[in-house]
């Protein structure tokens, strides 16, 4: 699933998911937004991660969810987890 790693596509999919779960106009969600600017609280963050886990077939650890407070970090985190998922097993 190499296409998952296309940075621009991935970013757009994540922005769309954030907008959908938060019932926001997609045009109002950008990679430069903090969660605070978007009015996303911790429970909203948990809901977004739930949607992202389903979309990308990844598992986000609890600690990661607590630490992510802006869209850019969320995109970066998802990209890392997808890369880990796609990496061939080493043993």
């Amino acid at each position, binding site marked *: 699933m190499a296409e998952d790693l296309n940075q621009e596509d991935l970013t757009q999919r994540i922005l769309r998911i954030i907008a959908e779960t938060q019932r926001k106009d997609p045009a109002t969600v950008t990679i430069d937004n903090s969660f605070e600017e978007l009015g996303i609280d911790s429970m909203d963050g948990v809901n977004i991660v*739930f949607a992202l886990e389903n979309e990308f077939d990844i598992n986000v650890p*609890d600690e990661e*969810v607590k630490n992510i407070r802006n869209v850019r970090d969320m995109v970066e985190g998802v990209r890392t987890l997808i890369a880990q998922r796609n990496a061939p097993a080493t043993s």
Partner: protein
Amino acid sequence: MRRVVVTGIGVISALGRDRESFQKALHEGQCGIARIKGVENYDLRFSNGAEVKCYDPLEHFEPKTADMIDRFAQLAVVAAREAVCQSGIEWTRELRETSAIVTGSCVGGQATENQGFYDVYKMGKTRVHPMTIPKTMANAGASAISLEYGITGPAFTISTACSSSAHAIGQAFSLVRSGMSEVALTGGSEAPFSHGILKAWEAMRVVSPTVCRPFSKDRNGMILGEGAAMLVLESFDHALARGAKPIAELVGFGMSSDAHHITQPSAEGAAKAVRMALQCGGIAPEQIGYVNAHGTGTTVNDITETTALHLAFGDHAKHLAISSTKAMHGHTLGAAGAIESAATILALSTGILPPTIHFNECDPECDLDYIPNCPREADIEYGISNSFAFGGLNAVLVWRRV
């Protein structure tokens, strides 16, 4: 208004199957948290819980009765029996007709429901057990206690998530205080261990992968627990007339709603419930010596509760001895207010305050005295038990040593 006293306490929890073992564990700072055994939790991000150990329904119920009531309702009956036994109440016809039963439960017989849905959705069965509905209903505990003693007075159940049994005790308090009932059996029970419910808690990302460390800087979440506590509340005059010895007095009850957020707590809402409880009992903040905190061990709760105590107690906050016994018996949800009220009463009556165990490191945002790790001897007259639920519904009870 009548004075309301406690003449009996029953507890079954991860700290033991009776009041005595509960009290001993609190005094020794024992931990009831262990790997969850009652559920196959192979795909969860957490593996620990605070289950009642070595519980055999057939030690407490006839086989047919055990089949008819869910574990959460069984625990309510077991605790009620111990409380009634300690109170020495003799059930006259008049007492049966007027006594009240008020219980709290958050999820009721969810394990029974979970099994029924598993059979239908997963196993493709076309029918579920006919007792699924009466075993699942949240009032099954109150009903089972009513049947146990033939009590026909006011009986109902309150479900306000983690404040359920604190609200229940508060309502029983009102019934006895007003003279509607001379005696009330009140408390709560919970048995929240099933695969479906554990998955739902996992999804909320508030459960610790290790243990519950309330107010400690390295805290990383709550630990789910099960159990029950029941109290015999009685008007002081009624207790006196039959020669019963009161263990404690319930002097105040306060409740509030945050109107803030469905899961995030509000310090102002919690502080309001504390203030109202003190006001109800005519107690000055400076009279309170011990606080059994809601103290779930989540990052947000413990900071918010600390702020709430500052708001409600002002300068006196730093003189309060505070502990969260959830580090020992877990977060028992709808039973929490009752189990922690029992802990509060036992702390006041024995003069030994239970510690907050698993406390490693001070958090600058939690700057009060949390009785870290070691129990403390203290001569304290008044203590409060805090319960702050998801949904922002708060209940605070003020207890007095007698």
